């Protein structure tokens, strides 16, 4: 359903992505793991055309596109098939929770307000914020803001939702509510690519795990395989470092 081929991206002399390829099937939850600076976030940003890749291509829902394109029309047509959940939520500060979710429907998709409202209310109710429709972002906690962000992504009925470290900016006690929401979406078969540092989440929820290091995919596969029998030495070292913390939590 989504396939990404040979993405390269440099910032000046810094070669961040050195040929990344992967496939995502319908209903897949792909967890992208890796240390900071391994290129995970840059990869997602290239797929959403927030950065122009130096080379590479993507096929989504039968639409083939060159990731280096500067065409606003083309990148918009891809963005209409995807949605993005940001690390810092990036809710529209000037709009209420409901308006945040509705904007992509009424303006980008020219839906009438009544239908858009119905969809938006349903999406917000799903993430547990049906009582907070008229709240502005600054009146919501981080966890609530991020759940509005997820509702905003859900509402436009995307083929795939990209999550860029959705819990990294949250206070520890708020991480659970956001992960719970993503878990629920996974159970309903939403296709997602999630860049994350939450190992337990990746192990329990993902259908596929990608481990990145130094701008390449070192290893990818089913989570039980990656977490219990990693083939690559680098993956093993990375997991050992992170799972130490993780083991204490069990």
């Amino acid at each position, binding site marked *: 359903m989504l396939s990404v081929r040979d993405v390269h991206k440099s910032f000046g002399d810094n070669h961040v992505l050195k040929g990344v390829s992967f496939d995502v099937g319908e209903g897949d939850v792909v967890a992208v793991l890796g240390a900071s600076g391994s290129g995970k976030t840059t990869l997602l940003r290239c797929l959403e055309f927030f950065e122009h890749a130096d080379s590479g291509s993507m096929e989504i829902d039968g639409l083939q596109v060159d990731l280096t394109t500067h065409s606003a029309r083309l990148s*918009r047509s891809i963005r209409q098939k995807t949605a993005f959940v940001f690390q810092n939520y990036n809710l529209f500060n000037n709009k209420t929770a409901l308006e945040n979710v509705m904007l992509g429907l009424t303006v980008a998709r020219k839906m009438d307000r009544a239908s858009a409202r119905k969809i938006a209310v349903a999406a917000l109710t799903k993430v547990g914020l049906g009582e907070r429709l008229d709240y502005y972002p600054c009146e919501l906690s981080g966890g609530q803001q991020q759940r509005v962000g997820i509702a905003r992504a859900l509402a436009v009925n995307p083929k795939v939702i990209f999550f860029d470290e959705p819990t990294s900016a949250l206070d520890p006690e708020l991480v659970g509510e956001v992960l719970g929401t993503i878990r629920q979406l996974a159970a309903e078969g939403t296709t997602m690519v999630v860049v994350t540092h939450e190992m337990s989440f990746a192990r329990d929820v993902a259908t596929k795990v990608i481990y990145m290091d130094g701008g390449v995919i070192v290893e990818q596969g089913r989570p039980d395989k990656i977490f219990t029998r990693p083939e690559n030495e680098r993956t093993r070292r990375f997991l050992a470092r992170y799972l130490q913390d993780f083991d204490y939590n069990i």
Partner: protein
Amino acid sequence: MQKITLEKIIYFFTGSVPALGVTFAYVIVSMIFGTIIGTGLYRMKSSHSKVAGFLANLYVTVVRCTPSLVMLFLVFYGLPLLVGGEAGARMEEWPILTFVCVTFSIFIGASSSEIIRAAVEAVPAGQAEAGLSVGLSGMQTFRYVTLPQMLKNAMPNIGNTVILLIKEGALAYTIGLRDVLGQAYYLSGREMNAYAVSMYIALTLIYWPLTILLEHLFAAFERALTPWERKGKRAALRRTAEGGAKYAG
């Protein structure tokens, strides 16, 4: 020794107030054209073209370094010469107000390019990215997400510019414009400036309330533009109250 009389103050006040129309005319026209020039300059500055950026910065520097009185004379006497020939000669027939509007549009162009830049940059980049991510076009993102937030950022500066313009514009009496100040000078001149102090008092009584009124007006605009900020303050107060109650309990 001059005498200050209430009668003369009222005379100058009532005689000059009607000329406020002229003041408002050049303020509104210059703000509109100045903002258009400023938007163009901002786009040049933020473009990838080095030449465009250089030209825009050159414009801003040159205009900033020119005293407004000098610019006023340059435009008033220089522009018809620059155009030259018959067209130039015809320009000299233009109403003085036109030259004043041109001068201040040039000025506002320079300052508003910086105001616009600051206002845009104060809106986090993630706001526009979020707009694009839900499928909005660049223009729609600007219209629905960036513009409302940047207007709020720019409003205090816009207010300052208007107030500055009203006062700076008084300089235009030097080329014969009959705005409030020009009109007052004209009336005073008819009486050999025998009551000049009364005239200045009358002018003060016009400019003060006008400026105060405008300050309040722009503050009201800013509040009307930002319903989310008021809610935010309420939420902050509520949180503080709850926090306080928690500690007290």
